[in-house]
């Protein structure tokens, strides 16, 4: 039973609807059938009553004069009538005398004259008892439980003096086909109603279930972490369900935003932690490194003529220099004081990159909206620009264009670089600003890390977006006080 309730609404709604329709139709059909039975019965009662009264009246004189033939003719007449199907044809008619013996019967071969009806069969015996017990003036239908026939017993009497009884016998077998015809009619109407209503109900159920199912599926997706609301227009009506869809959409959207925010926070914290760690390590390495390089320089000076030692020292020196370069690259220091960033710095950067751009056959298009210097350290902003544009040049396909815009808005210096080329992979995007993460084989993967460190230390924000074959980096740096 529970499994029935566990069914999808897709089936449950039409099933319940069908159940209700079938129940209602059954009830109506049953009512029709009962009605047809009642109609038949009242037909029977009225026809037997009128027939009984008419026959009893004419029978009286025949019986009192002992006119057997006349009585016979009277009770046989209704049986020879071609009955229209409104009236139920009696099976047999009997005229009984006061002792419940047959005065005459319409079927003398089976029920001859003077037969005591109590000896005919049990039904007649019970009928005889009833006639003796209650000689009523009307002609009610007498129907024994389990009897094969209906009976109508009308007294043959005048002014209350009873001469005998007229018994009209109806076979239930004759009655049944008519009842069956009525019942079939009722059932037919029921089937017709079902044939019309069930498909409508099924269609309506499907229609009603569809948005619920869409909502349930979407909820499941959300629970699994796919924050996608059902597409707008899934349920375009403004009823309760429509409002539910609207609210759900809003809810999913805010969940999505919250998730994005959380991811961003985690990323920032991770980057900050990495920044702190790497800065610490860099400092720790830098201090002995400086000493080692000074010691190497001294050693070189003292052993200038030792060629073999000089080669070894040179190897050491190159290695240590590479370590220093790497470490210093990681050691971003925003506290460097210097002059403010000016429009010509942008021109410098473009010139610095011209060679690289030429090599890659990429054009750099710089749009500068600056007219005067801004209160930001020029060295650091130049480094940001260099890193971003260098990446852009490398990522661009040949003969593409890298666009760089720089402008001031809402107290921020806004830098935006855009390049064509392969999009950044989604998993890479999450770790884009971490050190030693690189989109290509060249480079040590410190460019964006350094950029991020600089931007963060300057209190700004950096965001990357890669979509539709375009990769875009946006940097916003709050303007500080002028150092000029």
């Amino acid at each position, binding site marked *: 039973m529970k499994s029935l309730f566990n069914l999808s609404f897709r089936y449950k709604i039409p099933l319940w609807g069908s159940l209700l329709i079938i129940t209602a139709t059954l009830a109506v059909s049953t009512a029709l059938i009962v009605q047809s039975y009642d109609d038949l019965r009242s037909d029977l009662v009225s026809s037997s009553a009128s027939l009984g009264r008419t026959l009893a009246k004419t029978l009286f004189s025949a019986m009192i004069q002992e006119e*057997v*033939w006349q009585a016979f003719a009277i009770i046989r007449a209704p049986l020879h009538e071609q009955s229209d199907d409104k009236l139920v044809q009696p099976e047999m008619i009997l005229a009984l005398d006061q002792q419940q013996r047959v005065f005459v019967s319409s079927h*003398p071969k089976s029920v001859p004259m003077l037969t005591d009806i109590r000896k005919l069969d049990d039904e007649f015996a019970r009928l005889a008892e009833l006639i003796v017990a209650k000689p009523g003036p009307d002609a009610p239908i007498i129907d024994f439980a389990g009897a094969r026939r209906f009976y109508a017993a009308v007294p043959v009497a005048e002014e209350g003096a009873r001469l005998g009884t007229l018994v009209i016998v109806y076979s239930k077998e004759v009655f049944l086909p008519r009842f069956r015809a009525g019942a079939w009619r009722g059932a037919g109407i029921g089937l017709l109603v079902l044939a019309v209503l069930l498909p409508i109900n099924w269609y309506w159920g499907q229609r009603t279930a569809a948005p619920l199912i869409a909502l349930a599926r979407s909820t499941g997706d959300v629970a699994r972490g796919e924050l996608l609301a059902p597409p707008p227009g899934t349920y375009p009506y403004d009823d309760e369900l429509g409002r539910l869809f609207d609210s759900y959409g809003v809810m999913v959207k805010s969940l999505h935003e919250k998730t994005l925010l959380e991811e961003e926070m985690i990323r920032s914290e991770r980057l900050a932690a990495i920044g702190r760690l790497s800065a610490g390590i860099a400092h720790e390495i830098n201090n002995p490194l400086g000493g080692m390089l000074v010691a190497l320089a001294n050693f070189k000076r003292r052993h200038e003529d030792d060629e073999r030692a000089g080669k070894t020292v040179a190897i050491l020196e190159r290695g240590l220099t590479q370590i220093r370069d790497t470490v210093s690259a990681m050691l971003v220091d925003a506290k460097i004081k210097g002059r403010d960033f000016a429009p010509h710095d942008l021109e410098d950067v473009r010139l610095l990159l011209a060679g690289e751009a030429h090599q890659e056959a990429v054009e750099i298009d710089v749009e500068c909206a600056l007219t005067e210097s801004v209160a930001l350290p020029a060295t650091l902003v130049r480094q940001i620009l260099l890193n971003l544009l260098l990446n852009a040049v490398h990522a661009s396909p040949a003969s593409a264009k890298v666009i760089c815009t720089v402008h001031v808005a809402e107290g921020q210096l806004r830098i935006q670089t855009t390049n064509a080329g392969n999009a950044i992979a989604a998993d890479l995007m999450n770790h884009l600003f971490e050190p030693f993460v690189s989109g290509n084989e060249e480079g040590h993967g410190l460019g964006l890390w350094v950029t991020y460190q600089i931007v963060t230390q300057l209190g700004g924000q950096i965001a990357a977006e890669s979509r539709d074959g375009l990769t875009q980096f946006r940097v916003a740096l709050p303007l500080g006080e002028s150092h000029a």
Partner: protein
Amino acid sequence: MKLTRILAVLAALLALSTAEADDRATPVRIGLTPTFPHDQYRPLEKWRLYMERKLHRPVEFTRRDRYIETMDLLRLKKLDFAWICDYPYVHFRKQVKLLAVPVHNGRPYYQSYLIVPSSDKTTKSILDLKDKVFAYTDPYSNTGYLAPRFELQQAGEDPARYFHKTFFAWSHRRVLESVATGLADGGAISSHVWDTLSNGKPELTRAARVVTKSADYGFAPFVARVSVGDEDFRAMQKLLLEMPSDEEGRALLKELNLDGFIVGDTRLYERTERLIRAVGEK
């Protein structure tokens, strides 16, 4: 005086003419009884119109189920002629005179048939019907009442107690129907009616079986009221006797299942008379 004479002559002439006119307009009243299937309307209506044409007078048929009623109507001069049974003819001989005797199968006789339902295969005579239900035709019928009772009496039985129940069906045809439907276990009917119905209603005669046939009795006669004028009597008699001589008459006789009529003789009914005396119903 002269005037009164003229007036008297005029009055006499007037009376004569009206009497003549009366005679022309007065219908001939004929009583029909169930001695033959008298309840068939169409052939009898043809017969009546035939009579009107032959007699040049209106003819009225009066049908009564019971012989005694027809006899009463004759006595009360409500009828001029009647086709009755041989028993009332003999019984009420003083009130009627024999007009014509029908001829059936070439003879002016008929019989009483004892019949039982065709489902009854065992009955061989009326003596097998003791304590059964028996249908008589009419207490003034010979073939339908007197004959079977005579038979019982000859066998030493008391007809009044012999059967369990008896009833009068008031016509030969209904006796046949009673027996055919099983209402009665046995009955007695005229051989002429049986023959006629076995042609016209074979389904009825098939449902019954003739057990025994009685002796011949003079055929149920056409009679005239004793007081009917000679002219009317002769005209009517002539009409009946001459029926076989024209096409229409022959067709009517065929429908009545008769060959024709003869003048007849009271001697034809001597056996009936003996029967009445024997049964003691006279």
